[in-house]
């Protein structure tokens, strides 16, 4: 299935606090698009709008699956998952008192994913052999890096066509960050996913990005048509590289 996502002119936030202002992005089929921005600029808020956790006040979020378009605004998170969009949330949000495998099983909650559960479980265990070794361990007792693996693997268990990943690098040691970013690329390629990843870690994110956006105070400040454009952007140099 060829899925793509188009966010058109959304305003959104929390109650009367408006965080996103007239924001538009697109994620085409097969792309890895990164959403770069430092803390508090609205990356997570945008991802929450897409997954239905919060409803934008204005605008549309069009999911295009093989030419069939649906507006996701007003859909519940359950419906969005069922439509094939899976999110690896910020801070991992595992079920700490359940085992690794129980967490993965829960990832496959939606009907469509249940049919492919054994195939997908084998797949994520192949990508993350560590999780297979630790499958009966409580998720809450794992290291940060392992927990992030569980979170990503659980996202794959929903058998998505579009994967949203919110700051997978947070709280990880530098070598683990590049491992994790590499795994996201590997998953994307093996599963033919379309990926939208929010990150503040510019140097890592750019390694797998096809394109990207820079979000500042809830607005798209810069649209980069390629990874090179991202890397050579003056604003990024100022913000992230301290040049």
């Amino acid at each position, binding site marked *: 299935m060829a899925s793509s996502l188009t966010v058109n002119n959304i305003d959104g936030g929390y109650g009367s606090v408006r965080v996103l202002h007239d924001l538009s992005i697109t994620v085409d089929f097969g792309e890895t698009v990164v959403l770069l921005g430092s803390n508090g600029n609205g990356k997570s808020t945008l991802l929450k709008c897409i997954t239905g956790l919060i409803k934008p006040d204005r605008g549309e979020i069009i999911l295009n699956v093989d030419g069939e378009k649906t507006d996701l605004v007003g859909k519940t998170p359950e419906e969005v998952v069922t439509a094939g969009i899976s999110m690896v*949330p910020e801070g991992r949000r595992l079920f700490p008192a359940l085992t690794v495998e129980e967490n993965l099983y829960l*990832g*496959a*909650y939606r009907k469509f994913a249940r049919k492919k559960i054994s195939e997908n479980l084998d797949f994520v265990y192949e990508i993350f052999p560590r999780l297979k070794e630790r499958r009966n361990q*409580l998720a809450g*007792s794992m290291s940060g890096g392992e927990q992030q693996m569980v979170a990503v693997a659980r996202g794959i268990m929903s058998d998505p066509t579009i994967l949203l990943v919110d700051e997978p690098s947070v709280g990880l040691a530098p070598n683990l960050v590049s491992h994790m970013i590499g795994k996201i690329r590997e998953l994307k390629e093996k599963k033919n996913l379309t990926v939208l990843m929010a990150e503040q870690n510019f140097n890592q994110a750019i390694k797998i990005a096809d394109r990207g956006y820079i979000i500042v105070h809830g607005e798209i400040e810069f649209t980069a048509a390629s990874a090179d454009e991202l890397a050579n952007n003056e604003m990024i140099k100022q913000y992230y590289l301290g040049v």
Partner: protein
Amino acid sequence: MIELFINAVVAGVLLGGFYAAVALGLSIVFGRLDIVNIAHPAFVIIGSYMAFYVNENFGLDPIVTSFLFLPVFFLLGIVMYRFYYVCFERTGQESLSGLAYFFGIMFIIEVLIILVYGVDYRNVQAPYIGHSLWINDWIPLGDFRVSLPYRMLVPFVVAAVVTGGVYLYLSKTYLGRAILAVSQDRVALQLMGANPIKVKQWAFGIAIATAAIAGALLIVIHPVEPSVGRLYIGRVFAIVILGGMGSISGTFFAALMIGIAETLISTFIGPSWAPAAAYGILLVTLAVRPQGLFGRA
């Protein structure tokens, strides 16, 4: 002396099985959903009176009756949760108002039963009540006489089977796992494609359905009057906490432990001390192991 001890332990295990049946639903609702349903034992009493009514009028076995009425209790649980959700949980007032809600339900149930049946003790007829299984007939124990009254043995077996069934349901089905997860992170559960409210509602339905069975077991064990459920409130909450808050197997073993402690205390110290067993064990346990005896972490 040893004979007395062995008989007390055996009786304790059987009694504990029944406690497990009462605690099972609370283990789900209190242990997993964090909802303090103090009305749970009152639903057990409804189960007892329903078994009594059908037994008296149609002569049907009380336990069979309870299984026939499972769907009714399941629906009752769903309605009770929906009301709780709409009135309290949704507005974030669940802690204090929620407690008042369940206290009110308990009170209403008691009053309704008193209005219909009065305050007299009621009991049921079943072919196995009043007979015992003598272990000596099966295993040569020498001078010891060990007996298992069927009115205790049958409830124990039913409780063990139902506990096993609920355990398998929660650990092997998608909805069951969602019930285990829902209070840990409801937003994450939504991101998995489950609706937390529906999951909780379903869990409540199952919990109240188990109360129907526990009620039938109760009236098989001894006669029932409308407020007898109150005797169990403290005890079953203690069992759920000892069992590790929501661990089904933990709840079962904690129930057996309380059952054994109570019968030993009744036999060797005096029956009036028995109800203190649960609290005593709970206090000592919480002092040394706050996660309960059988908690996973």
